[in-house]
């Protein structure tokens, strides 16, 4: 199938784009089109109007912002993947990119579009929550910043209103000392069956803070707080790894589909938790 009719508007600026969003209540932003166009071709979504932001100048930046990184809405996956700045300040995201999509998809797809798409199996939301990223949304009424943890609300559902455009992603500087990402998918580059992104800090050999974030096993990416609690306060040893893995498995309520059943996903969460926590703790050293 190919898409039904739609109107096409090309924005020349962020202001123009958000004005167009305000003027066209059934419009959607078109970024890299790697998710949106496929869904339109399948006629799963039928926006009456697309607002193309690809010609908006200076929106693809990746730059220092304090000790963190600011990423413009048009930065392509591959630009983020290969950014030395991102690697230095948010290596978890760089590591996650090893599992995200394929070269040609990453050449066009944007990190911003990926986050707004909010696929429940996507890797990037888990990373954003694990590092404590902030998403900047703009509408004709102004801008607001939403923490990643509050941004993902459900399958294809985010805190961004219809009239809001995501303009920037802010990654904090290296807060945690250790980090690790792991995923299971049926094929490399596919959407995940289960993802765990972990960050943690050690003080005097004890875990001082931890974030264990899962994707692919619920409506949206989310922290597995019981697993984090199982880690904080003590050394990251086999006992605590087991406890965290068990807590992680208990904290998810995964679905079954043709790729994997719920029980397997739960076990995978445990295995990936153990794997990422161990590696994150090693990296603290």
């Amino acid at each position: 199938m190919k898409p039904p009719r739609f109107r096409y508007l090309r924005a020349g600026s962020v202001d123009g784009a958000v004005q167009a969003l305000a003027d066209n209540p059934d419009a959607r932003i078109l970024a890299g089109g790697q998710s949106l166009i496929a869904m339109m071709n399948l006629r799963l979504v039928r926006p009456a109007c697309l607002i193309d932001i690809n010609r908006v100048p200076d929106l693809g930046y990746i730059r220092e912002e304090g000790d963190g990184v600011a990423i413009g809405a048009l930065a392509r996956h591959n630009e983020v993947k290969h950014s030395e700045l991102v690697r230095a300040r948010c290596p978890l995201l760089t590591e996650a990119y090893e599992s995200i999509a394929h070269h040609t998809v990453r050449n066009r797809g944007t990190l911003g579009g990926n986050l707004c798409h909010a696929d429940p199996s996507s890797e990037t939301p888990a990373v954003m929550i694990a590092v404590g990223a902030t998403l900047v949304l703009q509408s004709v009424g102004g801008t607001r910043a939403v923490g990643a943890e509050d941004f993902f609300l459900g399958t294809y559902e985010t805190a961004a209103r219809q009239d809001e455009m995501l303009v920037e992603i802010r990654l904090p500087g290296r807060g945690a000392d250790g980090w690790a990402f792991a995923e299971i998918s049926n094929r490399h580059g596919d959407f995940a069956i289960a993802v765990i992104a972990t960050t943690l800090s050690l003080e005097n050999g004890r875990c001082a803070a931890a974030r264990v974030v899962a994707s692919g096993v619920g409506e949206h990416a989310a922290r597995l707080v019981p697993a984090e609690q199982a880690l904080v306060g003590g050394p990251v040893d086999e006992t605590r790894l087991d406890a965290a893995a068990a807590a992680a498995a208990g904290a998810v309520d995964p679905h079954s589909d043709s790729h994997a059943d719920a029980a397997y996903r739960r076990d995978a969460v445990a295995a990936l938790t153990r794997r990422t926590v161990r590696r994150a703790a090693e990296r603290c050293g």
Partner: protein
Amino acid sequence: MYVGQAIRRREDDRFLLGRGSYVEDITLDDPIAHAAFVRSPHAHAAVTRVDAARAAAMPGVLAVLTGEDWTRAGNGEAEGVWPVKDMSGADARTVNRPFICVDGTVRCVGEIVAMVVAEDRHQAQDAAEAIEVDYEEKPANTLTARALDADTPLVHPAHGTNEVLVTEHGLKEETEAALAKAHHVTEVVVPTNRVTAASIEPRCYMGHHDTVNDRYTVWTTNQAPHIVRRYFTKSLNIPEHKLRVIAPDVGGGFGMKLYHYPEEALVLWGAIVSGRPVRWVGTRSECLLGDTHARDHHTVGRMGFDAEGRILGVKFETLGAFGAYESQWNASITNAYHFTMLSLAYDIPAIHTTVRAVYTNATPVDAYRGAGRPETVYQVERLIENGAHEMGIDPLELRARNLIPPEKFPYQTAIGITYDSGDPPALVEKARALANYDALRAEQAALRAEGQWMGIGICAFFDMAGAGPVKMMNDLGAKIGCYDVASVRVHPDGRITVFAGSHSHGQGHETTWSQIAADRLGCNIEHIDLVEGDTDRVPMGIGTWGSRSLSTAGMAVYTAADRVVAKSKRMAAHMLECAPEDLDLADGEFTVKGTDRKLSFAAVANASYHSGDRPPDLEIGLEETSFFDPADCTYPSAVHLCVVLVDPETCAVTLRDYWAVDDVGTVINPMVLEGQVHGGLAQGIGQALMEECAYDPESGQYLAGTFMDYAVPHAEDVPSFGLDSHFTRALGNPLGAKGAGESGTIGAPACVCNGVIDALWHLGVRQVTQPMTPKKIWRAIEDAQRAQQ
């Protein structure tokens, strides 16, 4: 000599530079209209209302057509190419795949209910959406394993059963007796998963009716254009001489593009009704759903061994999928091709199999690369693997004890087929050396001690390729003559056009047919062009499928070229005043043996057309045709070996190594052969590890409608293959060549699955069904460990 050389494929410039010409690329003087289809969203439903009024009034719409219109137009039905009778002698309960729903019932998701023809593709799609159809859902079953259960809904209630036909083959009493006296009996449930070819080019058709000359043309993504021409005599009642079928460049067929699909008949009908050429280009989703699916056998097998691990007998009970209807060839897959190879590469004294072909509410099943034999190898080899482990005999050693020794060829199998030539022990020894088998076993033991799971997969088999002979295939049920044909036309300037009834959609015929012809004609390969795929330019042909083209069409090229040589020698002898026997033909020149008297081939060609000075009984012209009916099928054989690693935490499989040793007889072009083996292996590995045309068992909905849901292997999912070959000569054709197109897909599923079982045997795992995704392996380990507690 060109034969045997790894000549670069002559067609590749065109393909690599994006200059191929596929059905979607064809332009015509008249503007081309587009078709779109309304398809059933239900697995089984009564169609209670079709209202096209709104759609018909939409912009650009030229025609809206339904099953009622089809019937009113007097159009017909598809017809099986290869019907097989039930063992009772009765005809099978065949219900042919309809082109469009004509009887008010849809029996699988995707069945066509209506067609729109419009000026452009989007208008056609929009109008198709505006057609209102009311359905009354009925109970459905998509699972082959459940097809004959008492409470399973019937797909065709008029037949009172979901059984299409039953056939039995082999030695029933002997097999029972062998199992009864066996020292050890292994039993395994060995189902094969439902997969589809997933060719890169989707199916695509265009139809045109020339009302001035009352001629019809169809451009089609098909492997056998002459058979398409024959199909149309039934579907649209068009006589063969009025229809031209063109299969231009085709981007992958794999058997799946062999049939008279609904859309193919409908676009030409749409063209007749609308008075405009009409094209349909399948979307990936339409193709993953509507292309024929394949495999989907549910089999229980029992194999008996003596105390030394020698196989005494093997017995199978199979339910073979048809899907909702018969696609044109499927009876030949489930009930003719499948059983023939059950002896594989082993000397098995007693074999018996019962195959019940069954209907389910799923897409029709038909041939796909290997067609029936991947199932065969999988079911036999899975039993051998488990038997070896159960008896504590090294799996390769147990196989070696059972191989057919070279001195037993020609070898008559217990299932009835005779293999003309082969040397399985030589293949096994080459594979053992290539893989360094003993070192692999040592590595496996060392890794297992560290908690790592490594497995070695093995299989050894024969294939039946190269159909005909005509009579043998007729006896197996074929209603088409399985010969093939070629003409060699020498032009007056000495350049040559070869016309062949085969069709190349990835096989490289422009290179290999030219290699054969150039050697026979003693000419430069650059002086040869090949024409295929156009029924107006090549009058007859049977097409490319079942690894048959080389041993049929390729041999027709060979014999037609020889006839040209014989005739041209008579003319040359006349011109050089010698006897034809005194002439050699090489490098484009006739030479009188033992002298320096020469004449160019071009001069003789010119004289053949333009000189009145010729032998009195020699006809003008230099063109010969050969209809080649081979003396036998060909029986290629192979041994595959692989190494898999299973991640103990996530159960993900890594295929680390893969070796294949093939005996394909004479090799025309080693590079083309390697390409065939590589491609086949990748598809077979896909079947083993990730591909599945899955249906929701409750709703009957299709779950594999995009490439996000139907996983085919990427380059990084397959290892670099280690290939070797061993030569024994095929006896059924003058070149001694055997087919090479299907070995990869036939062997790889069994080999990879055996590797995974070998890796997990110590955990208590005895079977994991395909595709062996991480979740299934994880589940199998869980179940095995629970059972051991």
